[in-house]
């Protein structure tokens, strides 16, 4: 036994499968027999949306069972990805509810799932919906189905004028200070 094999054997004995914090299974595609197309199709109402920062819009998605068996227990999930370099996306800010359960679908039937999206950052983004089987035997053939991305352009209104804020931040206390001095001077004159 070489030294490397000895170390590997010692590690295997020290950390038997299932005793660690995580267990890893082979990918689902391998388990279900390769590159079979998913039995679900996801479509969106729009291909492109342009909006302004802070505005919200509704987005509809249609989940269709294109397989031959009824499906139940699918979960639809909305995600947002920034296509503009350096723009950070926190998807929770973009939609109040990004995960929804899809009702049971007979072969050839569709379900419509609506989403609310808020434009939180300025830039270009892709919004897409993915369906994930919840692990039940009734949707084992569904696989992971990803819809086409929606191209979203958010125009940013640069209204935070840092030049104007100096005028406000100095002007208002200055005005109140002048009012204080004026009131006191007037009172002193009246007392004389």
């Amino acid at each position, binding site marked *: 036994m070489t030294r490397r094999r000895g170390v590997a054997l010692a590690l295997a004995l020290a950390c038997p499968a299932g005793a660690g914090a995580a267990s890893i299974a082979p990918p689902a595609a391998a388990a279900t027999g390769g590159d079979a197309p998913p039995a679900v199709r996801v479509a969106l109402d729009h291909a492109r949306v342009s909006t302004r920062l802070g505005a919200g819009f509704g987005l509809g998605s249609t989940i269709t069972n294109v397989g031959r068996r009824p499906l139940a227990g699918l979960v639809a999930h909305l995600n947002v990805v920034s296509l503009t370099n350096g723009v950070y996306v926190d998807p929770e*800010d973009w939609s109040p509810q990004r995960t929804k359960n899809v009702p049971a679908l007979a072969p050839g039937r569709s379900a419509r799932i609506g989403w609310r999206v808020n434009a*939180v*950052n300025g830039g270009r983004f892709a919004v897409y919906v993915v369906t994930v089987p919840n692990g039940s035997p009734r949707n084992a053939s569904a696989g992971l189905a990803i819809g086409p991305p929606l191209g979203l352009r958010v125009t940013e209104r640069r*209204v*935070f004028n840092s030049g104007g804020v100096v005028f406000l*931040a100095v002007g208002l*206390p200055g005005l*109140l200070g002048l009012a204080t001095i004026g009131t006191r001077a007037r*009172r002193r004159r009246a007392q004389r």
Partner: protein
Amino acid sequence: MATVAAPSRSTAARDTGVVAGQELRDLWLAGRGLPLMVAFSLLLSVITYLGATNRSLNFLERRETVNLTVQVAVAVGALLAMVVAGDAISGERERGTLESLLLAPVSRRGLAAGKLLAALSLWLAALVVAGPYLWFLARGVGAFTDAMGAAALAGTLVAVTFTALGIVISSLARSNRLSLSVSLFTLLALYTPTQLPAGAKQGWAAELLLRVNPVTAAEHYIGKVVINQHGWTQDAAWLLSPLVGAVALTFAAVVVAPRFMSLRGSALG
């Protein structure tokens, strides 16, 4: 303990008007009103400058900046009104002018109510001063109406609560120092839960405490309206404790505390 004859409603209203007019003149023409507003506006200037010059804030963070400014305006505005109210009776007692006030032909209820109204004028002035700052911060995200409305509604209830509490404590305390320290301690104690981490605010017991405390309840309401863009009535139940606090303490300040108003102070100290 002095006995107080219950004045008629019209006499009490007239007395309140006379006392409030005199107190307002003293506060705004000769007293601390305008210098306090200068200090208040300087504080809001610093917050507004920091918020406005940070261009990396996203839409929600801008609303959070507006919310922070509203919270500071409410907290400091209520504090200013409470400090003036805390000095209202005990200050007169300490300066030796309470005797002449008690001998003046005004009812004690009118005296307390007039001083309460004059102290509340500081909160109204703070709200007016906060307006331009909120407009500047909120104009890009369309939150100005939400911010001003929430500040006017929830902030006024908090300010009335603390100002009336200040009058009650001031009526009872034997010294001005005691009155101001008890008032400030109460205000700080009620503001402390606003600094708890989000995790500590989970669960029914925590929510109950947040709802019962008028400060945390008002803060929650303002946050929901300004940040989450909730409607005015959606979280109106959160305004119950500020409303109860404002009504109960105003009653205590105007009806109960004058019975204990004396030259030496009664219960505290």
